[in-house]
Structures are given as C-alpha cells and as structure tokens.
C-alpha cells in the first residue's frame, strides 16, 4: 500500500532522475579514473522504470491500444463482432430490463419497503368499514384503500368516454407519500369533488398545460376540481405497468377497496400478520359477515424481492422471464462463438508475432493478457452497442400500445442494475470469445506445425457447438410460434368476425333500479337491431375474454335431493345473445317472454356433462346453493365457448336472462352481428348510443380487435421466443459461413492440386459440402438431444394439443438448420470453383 502511494506521489520526478543519475555515475567513475562501468544503461533504466510503474494497468492499457491498432486493420472482423455481440447483448439487456420492470419495479410511494397489501379472508377488496376499523385499531402507521378498476365517464363538453380511474381513500396521497408533478395530491380535508390526473391523460387531453390544475372536469356528471398531475414515471401499487388515468376520492358508500397499510418502524411481516389476525377476530364481532376475516388472511409487501415470495402469480412471470433470459443468454453464446471463431482465424495470422514475443521472453500470463485484450475491446464495444440497442427498443416498447383493454404503460429506463448486467455480459463474452483463441494461439506458437490440423478441427467443433445451441433456441422459438398458430386456429366458440362489441358505462343518476336499467338495455338493443346492416343485437353482463364472473356453489337437485359441488362461469344475457354471437343452441331454446315469473337458465354442454349426472337437461330443476330455495329450470343447452383464454379447457357455464337478475352494475355490454364489414358499423353504433344516453361512456370495437387479450400471452411469448430463435439462426449461419469461407481459403492449394490432377467441379462441391454437412449434422444431433431435455418444462405455457416433444417440431428445426447451413456454404463453394489450379499452385 505504501508503495502504491509512493508511486503515485513521486512517479514523475523519479522517472526524470533515473537517467540523470546514471549519467552522473558514469561521469564520476570516469573522473576518478577507475571502474568505467560496462553495463547497459538502457537496461538499468528499464529496471528502474519497471519498479515505478503500475505494471498491470499500464500493460493493460498498452495492450488495449495495441489491440485497437490491430483491429483497425480488420474492419470486417470488428463489424461482424460488433453486430453479433451487439445483437446478443441488446436482446439480453432488453429482456433483463423488461423483467426487472415487471417484477421488481418500485411503486411511486415514499419508503415502498414499509407498505404492505392486506387481504382479509383472501378478499382482494373490502368495504370501507373494514378499513376504518383497521385504522382505528392503531396496528399500522397508516391504512389506505383504493379501488383501481373503476371506469368513470369523462365528458369533455362534446363527448362522453369511459376512463380508467382509481377511487381512493382521502389519505391515500399523503399517507403513501406519492410525488406529483404539478399541484398536490388529494388531501384528507378535501371535498369529494377533486381529482388527480395521470401524466398521459393530461398530455392527451390538455396538451400538457400546467394551468389545468384548479380547473374542473365533468366526471360521472360531477364537477371535480383538478388538484394535481402525476409525474410521467408514476408507478402504481399494483405494478405491471398498469396506468389508470384519474385518481379521485371514493364518493360512493358501496365502493369496495383494496387495503394497503404502512408498517410502523421496525415492524416485521409476521408481527403485523399476528396483529391483523387479532384485529380480524374483533371484526368478526363488530362487523359480522358470513365468513371469518382472519381466515385466509394475506399480507404481502408491495415492492422488491419480498413481493415475489408472497405472490404466486408473480412467480410464474418470474419463471417465464428466467426462461427468456436463459434463451437470450444462449443467443449471446452463439454470438460469442462467432467472434471466437473469427479471433481464432486471426490468431493464426499472428502466429509469427507471438512466436517472437515468446522468444524475447514474454511470459505466458503476459501473452494471454495481450491476446485477451482483443476480445476485451470487442466485447466492451459490443456491450455498448447492445445497451444502446436495448435503450432504443425500450423506447419503442414504451410507445407500443398493447392490445389489451386496460391501460398498460411499461416504463423501462436504464438503471444501475442494467449497467451491472451489461458489464457482466461484457466480461462473460470477453471470456467466451477470447479464452479459447488466446490459448490456442499460444499453444500453436510453441510448436506451430503440429497443431495446424488440430486448429481447423477446433473451429469445426466451435461451429458444431454453435449449430447445437441454435437448434435449442430455434426449437423453443418454433414451439412458441406453433403455439401462436394453434391458438389462432382454435375457435373461441362464437363469431368474432362479423360481430361488434360496445361496452357502455351508465351514469349513476337515473339508473338506480333494475327497471330503469332494463328499459335502457331494451331500447338500445332494439335501436341497434334497427340499424341498416345489423342482423341482430343483444346485451350481456360480461363479454367473453374481457373479465368474467365465476361461481363455486353447491347445486341441489330436488328430484333426488342430491347435492353437487359445482364451479362455473356465469353470464346474464338478453334472448338474442346466442343468435347474435352465433353460439349454437344444442337443445331447447333461448329465453322467452313466457318464462317471466319463473327462474330459467341456459347451460352449456360442459355443464350438462359435469354436473347433471346423466339427467335429461331440458326441464331439469336445481336449487342454487344450499339455502336458496328458488328453483332454476334449464330451458336450453348451448355449445361451449371459451371464456378467458383461447387455449383453456372447456368450462361449465350458466346463462341467466338479464331481466331476471338483480343488476347492481352500471356497466353493460352490447353485441351486434353485422352483415356488412363490422368496421363500417362502429360510427353508426356510437351515434345510437350517444343519442339514447349522452352521459354514458361507450367503447365500441369490432369483436376481433377487442378480444386481443386472449391471444396476448402466446403472442408475446411467440414474438419474443420466435425472434430470439431467428436471431440465433442468423448468427449461427454467419458463423458457419465464416468457417467455410476460411476453410476454402486455407485449402486453395489443395483444391488447386485436386483440380489439376483431374477433379471435376462436382468433386470439389462434394468435398466442401461433405465438410459442412458433417459439422452441421453433428451440431444438429447434439442440439436436438439437448432441446429434447430443456423444452420439457415449457409445457405449462402451451395450448392443449401441443407438446414440447412433438417430433414435427424437431424435424422442422433440423431441416431449417441444415438448409441454412448449406446456404451459408454456397458462397465459399462458388469461390472454390473459381480456383485456378495454375495460380493456386504458384501461391506460397
């Protein structure tokens, strides 16, 4: 340490004095007429310099400069390496930051580590009385609530449209400490009529004008004052990029809320859990319900790694990203093998130089360091290019509007984690690219003629490895691609091509009773059906693929008193629903006016199969639940439709007439079937809806565009995996091309001799093709074996009917890989055919 500081301090002065001192010594010796030294002054001075240098760093620097100089002479190599490594690192970095954002991003609140989500008896939302009870218990520093799935109607003076909003408790902003861009958050003493806008809503509707703070907006028919604007990078407590547009205080007594609490300093999760169980037990007495609050209680942190531990669905996403990172890691490996192969070719050019260095006394370590400088330089540049690429793709990702019905905005920004990951990738690729060529170069220079053949073999082995990795990557990519095709081919069970869907959100005033609501539905349905080109129209409580209502109850059959546990999806529709959606009615009929006064249902065939126990479905009567004494009679059996995802197994379903249920919702779906292209009907439908109730927010889409969500998981998966697979294939074929080109160049003489002694073009082609085919086949065989093993766990992401071990999959990948390999051999073969034996023999 002392040496190090001394060096730093006195280095410059010392450097200068070394030569002076030696000169002085010689002079003195001469003047004393004795002992004229015969030593080599330069060598002595060099000893002195060596003492004073930071050898490692300085050597490294010199090596880098030397490497840069050398690489400048081979721009093609640099370009190939930059493109390969850049793509490899870029893909990795993008996936990494995407995963980090989805899994570990911190919500925009003060000290996110001390905020927990609380679910009493596993309920995601609770009535406000529960929050108030919990707050008064004093267990937590603060208790806040939000209902994040509210759709409110925003009227800008000419048009009403539904907006994703969050209802909050009034202490939400202050207790959580949410930063705002302009104005302030909602304050505990604010009236109900205030609102905080999201950055994107503010940009979109007010052009980013800060003076909107203080203005009023018509939200659900109430005039609300805008008190603040959220910053652009606001992240919600839910995370996953969910970005609602408006925050306002909960003003309806019935709004249920998700509970969040801030822990008191030093409080652990288990401690707060114990406290919450005690509070729950007291609540069982104070706010009695037909379940116990403390049973199934969930407490989970909202941020960081701790969240992963407590939430299982987050874990599935983590697994998917780990898989993606592994696959993109393989692609980077392919890129590295490419660069390694290029450097290997270069190393043989430097054989002479290395031999000289060894001869004049360079040590092994020193040489290795120098040879690794090449790959260090390349991988650093590659990593920089890759990170730049990742930044560009992050920008693009932020702009992509995901085809989902909820506002999702992914805010990926480079941070220290990405920088560390990038550096890690750079070091990794330096070793992967450089170690083998450097080692080989040294070995070869020590006994250079022995290893010529061996080195070509090494390069071939590298290509085989590359082909093998590509096969693995490609198999995964292709599997997901087929998954997508399968999913698209699966029918949802209803017509998505000729149908239009309108999601309407009624204003609270004027639609409080079932009668008022139903009168409105009736009027809309008949007006829509009267539009020219519309064949039929219907209303429904839920639209498949856009949320759903699930029941888990015991059905009682009065005929023999049997009780049957049942789990089914539920919907309430008008009679024309089945015809409009083209859902085949297998038996019986839809609802009719004659059913009034009696409770009737239509069930699907899966319901019949699973729960009716062989009864003739039509006319079967069941009681809903254990205590409900109302008999429900089955009047029709409809075909099965998909409800949430396109790949799901058939699910039992019950349809009730819309006018039979107690309708507590202000949201309703209309669907119509059009004889003309549905895209043309959107405007007329909007006009009808606006005419009947101008205060209602309406979203009108073709059915095809609105069920995009169903295809999303496999689409995204297929896109990511597929493009990664293609990238791998591309990189591998570049590598193969390089090796073949190099091998032809090396064998110019041999081929010349062969042609001279009578080999025909066909022989030359056979020679080279055989070469490439052997390497490729070896790689494919190894790759297929590996792929067979590693794709097994993918089954959880695939639609039924598609298995990871599908032979077709492997066949296609193998053929594609082989074809690519042959194509990559094409150009070198052409070059080989042009070899002129006379000039080839004259070479060397």
């Amino acid at each position, binding site marked *: 340490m*002392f*040496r190090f500081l*001394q*060096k730093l301090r006195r280095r410059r002065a*010392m450097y200068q*004095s*070394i030569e*002076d*001192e*030696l000169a*002085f*010594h*010689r*002079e*003195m*010796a001469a*003047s*004393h007429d004795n*002992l004229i*030294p015969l*030593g*080599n002054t330069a*060598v*002595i001075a060099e*000893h*002195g310099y*060596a*003492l*004073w240098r930071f*050898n490692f760093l300085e050597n490294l620097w010199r090596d880098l400069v030397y490497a840069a100089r050398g690489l400048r002479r081979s721009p093609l190599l640099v370009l190939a390496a930059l493109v390969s490594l850049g793509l490899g690192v870029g893909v990795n970095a993008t996936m990494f930051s995407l995963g980090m954002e989805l899994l570990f991003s911190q919500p925009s609140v003060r000290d996110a580590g001390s905020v927990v989500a609380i679910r009493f008896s596993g309920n995601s939302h609770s009535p406000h009385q529960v929050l108030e009870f919990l707050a008064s218990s004093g267990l937590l520093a603060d208790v806040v609530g939000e209902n994040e799935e509210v759709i409110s109607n925003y009227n800008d003076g000419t048009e009403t449209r539904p907006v994703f909003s969050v209802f909050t408790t009034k202490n939400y902003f202050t207790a959580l400490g949410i930063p705002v861009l302009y104005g302030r958050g909602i304050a505990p003493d604010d009236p109900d009529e205030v609102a905080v806008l999201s950055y994107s809503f503010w940009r979109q509707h007010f052009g980013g004008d800060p003076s909107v703070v203080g203005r009023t907006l018509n939200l659900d028919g109430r005039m609300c004052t805008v008190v603040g604007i959220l910053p652009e990078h606001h992240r919600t407590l839910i995370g996953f990029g969910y970005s609602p547009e408006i925050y306002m205080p909960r003003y309806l007594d019935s709004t249920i809320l998700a509970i969040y609490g801030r822990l008191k300093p030093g409080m652990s999760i288990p401690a707060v859990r114990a406290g919450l169980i005690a509070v729950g037990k007291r609540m069982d007495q104070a706010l009695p319900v037909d379940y116990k609050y403390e049973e199934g209680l969930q407490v989970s942190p909202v941020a960081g790694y701790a969240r992963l531990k407590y939430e299982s669905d987050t874990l599935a996403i983590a697994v998917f990203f780990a898989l993606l990172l592994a696959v993109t890691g393989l692609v980077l490996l392919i890129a590295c093998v490419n660069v390694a192969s290029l450097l290997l070719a270069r190393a043989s050019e430097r054989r002479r130089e290395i031999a000289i260095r060894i001869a004049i006394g360079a040590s092994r370590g020193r040489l290795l360091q120098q040879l690794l400088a090449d790959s260090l330089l390349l991988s650093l540049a590659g990593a920089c290019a890759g990170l730049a690429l990742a930044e560009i793709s992050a920008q693009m990702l932020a702009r992509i509007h995901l085809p989902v019905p909820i506002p999702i905005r992914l805010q990926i920004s480079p941070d220290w984690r990405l920088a560390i990951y990038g550096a890690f990738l750079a070091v990794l690729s330096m070793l992967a690219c450089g170690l083998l060529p450097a080692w080989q170069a040294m070995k070869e220079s020590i006994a250079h003629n022995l290893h010529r053949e061996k080195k070509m073999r090494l390069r071939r082995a590298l290509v085989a490895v590359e082909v093998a990795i590509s096969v693995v990557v490609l198999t995964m990519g292709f599997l997901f691609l087929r998954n997508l095709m399968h999913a698209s081919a699966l029918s949802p069970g209803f017509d998505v091509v000729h149908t239009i869907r309108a999601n309407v959100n009624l204003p609270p005033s004027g639609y409080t009773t079932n009668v008022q609501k139903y009168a409105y539905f009736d009027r809309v349905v008949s007006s829509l059906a009267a539009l020219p080109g519309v064949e039929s129209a219907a209303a429904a409580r839920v639209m498949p693929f856009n949320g759903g209502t699930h029941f888990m109850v015991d059905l009682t059959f009065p005929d023999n008193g049997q009780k049957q546990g049942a789990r089914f999806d539920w919907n309430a529709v008008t009679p024309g629903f089945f015809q409009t959606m083209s859902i085949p009615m297998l038996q019986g009929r839809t609802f009719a006016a004659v059913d009034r006064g009696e409770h009737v249902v239509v069930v699907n065939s899966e319901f019949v199969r699973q729960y009716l126990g062989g009864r003739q479905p039509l006319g079967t009567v069941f009681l809903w639940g254990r205590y409900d004494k109302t008999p429900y009679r089955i009047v029709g059996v409809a075909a099965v439709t998909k409800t949430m995802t396109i790949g799901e197994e058939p699910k039992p379903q019950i349809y009730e007439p819309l006018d039979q249920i107690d309708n507590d919702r202000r949201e309703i779906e209309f669907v119509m079937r059009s004889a003309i292209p549905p895209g043309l009907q959107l405007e007329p439908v909007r006009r009808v809806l606006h005419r009947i109730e101008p205060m209602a927010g309406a979203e009108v889409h073709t059915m095809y565009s609105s069920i995009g969500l169903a295809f999303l998981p496999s689409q995204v998966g297929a896109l990511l995996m597929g493009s990664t697979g293609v990238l791998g294939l591309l990189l591998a074929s570049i590598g193969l091309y390089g090796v073949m080109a190099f091998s032809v160049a090396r064998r110019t003489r041999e081929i010349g001799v062969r042609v001279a002694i009578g080999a025909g073009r066909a022989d030359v082609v056979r020679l080279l093709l055989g070469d490439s085919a052997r390497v490729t086949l070896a790689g494919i065989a190894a790759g297929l074996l590996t792929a067979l093993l590693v794709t097994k766990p993918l089954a959880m992401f695939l639609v039924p009917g598609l298995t990871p071990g599908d032979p077709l999959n492997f066949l296609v990948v193998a053929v594609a890989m082989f074809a690519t390999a042959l194509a990559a051999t094409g150009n070198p073969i052409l070059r080989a055919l042009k070899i002129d034996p006379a000039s080839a023999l004259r070479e060397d």
Partner: protein
Amino acid sequence: MGKAAQPALLQGTLDLLILHALQRGAMHGYAIAQTIHLLSEEVLKVEEGSLYPALWRLELDGAISAKSGLSENNRKAKFYQITKHGQKLLADQEATWERLSTAVSRVLAG
C-alpha cells in the same frame, strides 16, 4: 513484477551493505559504491547495474529517502539518506547476516 535473476542472498546482502554505508550520512550512488568498495578493502565491487535498481527499490520501500544536492565537484546529484524504517531494516538484516555467517563459518569449521 520485475524478474530479478540474482540469488536472494546476494540481493539481500547488497541491501544490507547499502544501508550500512548510508549510516555514515547522506551520499550519492557513486559514493555508496565507493564506500562499499573501500570498506571491503577493495574486495567487493558494486556494479551500477545492481546498485541503482537496489537503491530505487529501497527508496520505494521507504528504507531510504532521496533528495537532490550538489556533489563535491559541484554537480547536481541525488543523495540518499537512511530513514527510521531503514534503520530498523538494517538492524534486522544485520542480525540475520550475523546468524547466517556464524552458521556458515561453523559448518566450514566443522
């Protein structure tokens, strides 16, 4: 770092001799060589090739310090001086040398 090819004994001994010589006061490299030469009754000849690297290393280790001054013939020269750390090092090395040389003498006498 540097690959000194000399046997360890020789190098250690040179350090000892330099430090010992410097006990008489600050002197420049040539004077050190002369002093050792004279004190050894002209047996030991210290070549510049080993003297200066040894001096620089000792300086770097903090056993001696250097400052420039004027030589007897009025030339600017670098004068070395033993430091406290150097004194300690010298004591250690003298003791080690003492033990070594007696041991070697005993062996040769035996």
